[in-house]
């Protein structure tokens, strides 16, 4: 039994000392992956981090605010291209990243307006339209997409004599931590509460003084900020941008990650991102079977555990907490 002595203490991030120690250990271990893990997997791990940022963003929208978007690829593209252009004119990495997030966030805020009127599948189609339109704009407007040759993005230079892979990993990991931490903070704030309220009963939320417009638009803006940053990281990762990289199947990947990981769960989003990145890679040698196994994995996860991987994780945690007595 742990006693909470003050309300301030209750608001802390990880309250129990043991939990905090384990968390730090895990975080440090992940940070040191370049020094103990197989080198070949480093880029794949970076891909997980950059995906996780986007999936968390998507989950804030679907899982917390209860709004659906099939247009994530559009925000991804806006983030990636903004980042690319900023980097090319010499803007430093962090600022370019913020610019990418900002541009995507602005787009998200605008796309949010239909969400004030549309629900469920109808909203999904409207956002799908946004994704398609964004794709077509980048595919057809040459000064945006860099024309035939595409947009080449200057690579990150590694300091302190680190290998570039290592440096990219560390930078991506740090950004991932920043955004994950922020997501935890947001969902435990007044805003997170308002999102859940709007999701559970928008009429009641409105009657309690929550502005639906403001809350939903913020959800879209923040979610697309995350997605935009994820797109920027993707751009840096690829070093080269072409509109084809942001088609509808990219949106679907995010969607699957959210559901497989678990709705309304930040840690679930991380599992989900790892799932969509790592499972196809692990199954890589099976070739034709990749989609089949990927699909079966989705089916079995959902049939066995509708709360997604996060639900599985929760059960495991519960099991170990009660372990000697069970």
């Amino acid at each position: 039994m742990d006693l909470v002595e003050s309300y301030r203490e209750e608001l802390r991030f990880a309250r129990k000392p043991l939990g905090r120690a384990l968390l730090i250990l895990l975080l440090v271990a992940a940070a040191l992956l370049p020094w103990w893990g197989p080198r070949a997997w480093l880029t794949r791990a970076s891909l997980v981090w950059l995906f996780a940022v986007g999936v968390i963003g998507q989950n804030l929208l679907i899982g917390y605010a209860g709004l659906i978007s099939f247009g994530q690829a559009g925000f991804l593209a806006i983030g990636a291209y903004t980042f690319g252009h900023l980097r090319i004119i010499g803007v430093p990495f962090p600022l370019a990243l913020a610019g990418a997030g900002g541009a995507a966030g602005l787009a998200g805020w605008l796309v949010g307006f239909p969400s004030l009127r549309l629900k469920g599948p109808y909203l999904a189609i409207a956002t799908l339209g946004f994704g398609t339109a964004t794709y077509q704009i980048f595919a057809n407007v040459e000064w945006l997409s860099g024309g035939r040759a595409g947009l080449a993005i200057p690579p990150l230079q590694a300091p302190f004599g680190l290998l570039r892979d290592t440096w990219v990993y560390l930078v991506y990991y740090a950004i991932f931590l920043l955004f994950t931490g922020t997501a935890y903070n947001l969902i435990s704030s007044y805003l997170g509460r308002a999102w859940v309220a709007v999701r559970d009963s928008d009429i009641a939320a409105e009657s309690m003084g929550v502005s639906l417009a403001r809350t939903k638009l913020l959800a879209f803006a923040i979610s697309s900020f995350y997605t935009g940053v994820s797109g920027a990281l993707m751009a840096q990762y690829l070093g080269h941008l072409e509109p084809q990289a942001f088609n509808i199947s990219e949106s679907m990947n995010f969607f699957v990650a959210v559901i497989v990981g678990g709705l309304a769960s930040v840690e679930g989003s991380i599992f989900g991102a790892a799932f969509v990145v790592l499972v196809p890679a692990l199954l890589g040698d099976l070739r034709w079977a990749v989609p089949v196994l990927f699909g079966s994995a989705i089916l079995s996860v959902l049939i066995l555990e509708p709360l997604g991987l996060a639900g599985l994780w929760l059960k495991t945690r519960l099991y170990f907490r009660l372990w000697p007595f069970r």
Partner: protein
Amino acid sequence: MPSLLQYALSGLSAGSLYAMVALGLVLIYRSTRVLNFAHADMATVGTFIAFSMIRSGVPFWLALSMAIVAGSAVAVVFYFAALVPAQRKGANHLGQVILTLGLALILQGLTVYQWGAEPDRFPFPLSDTAVFQVGPVFVSELSLGTLAAAATASLVLYLLTQKTRLGLAMRATSENLQAAQTLGIPTRGVLAFAWGVAAALAVVAGVFLAPVLLLDPFFMLDAMFKGLAAAVLGGLNSLPGAVLGGLLLGVAESLGGAYVSLEFKTSLAFILIVAVLLVRPEGLLGKEFQERV
């Protein structure tokens, strides 16, 4: 003017393809509130089965019937093996949608494994290139056939859902599952039937689309998204809406591509849809049940 007519007609023939896809999607949405992302892949599997049989000398109509049976079997198996257990575990609508996405991936993988990814031509009794010339306008045999097939499918579905006891049970089950259960209506069977019919519709759509779009494991993807958009445009729970939405979408796309911008024709169609939805959030003919305060 003749070219406007020709564009409109070309749009109608594309629209009737979208309408066929939309009908199946609407049927499933109406009865289970699930958007079926595996629709295209069920259609693809069925079409390939028909294709293989025709290739090995089976007459067209027999092959089509067998493919419909096979497609329905896939859907019914999926309903009992995946959806029912997931519902038992308390999966929400979104989870069920993702289940269909999982099925889509599995079917896609199996199709590529079995038939390869290279395109092929689908033998069809109606020719796509034999054309009738009416004044300045050309119509192909197949376009007429597709229009007729879409009209027939929607009529049959309309009669099924509005005029038969089974259709009544389908509507009842979709509206209030628990009440239907307590009245002794075999809801599992009814829903499985709905999935089967939707899959049959998907296969028919696939077989009509294949000669136009050429057959490969991904030939339905675009049509699937357009069909989905058409269904939403018409109202996701309205069968006539699906047909109307499909035709409108096809014509809008064609005219937009012809007179505004070919590069942005899909975007133009979506802008139209969003505009319609902002005025009528449940689609043109849709009617979502209102929540009461």
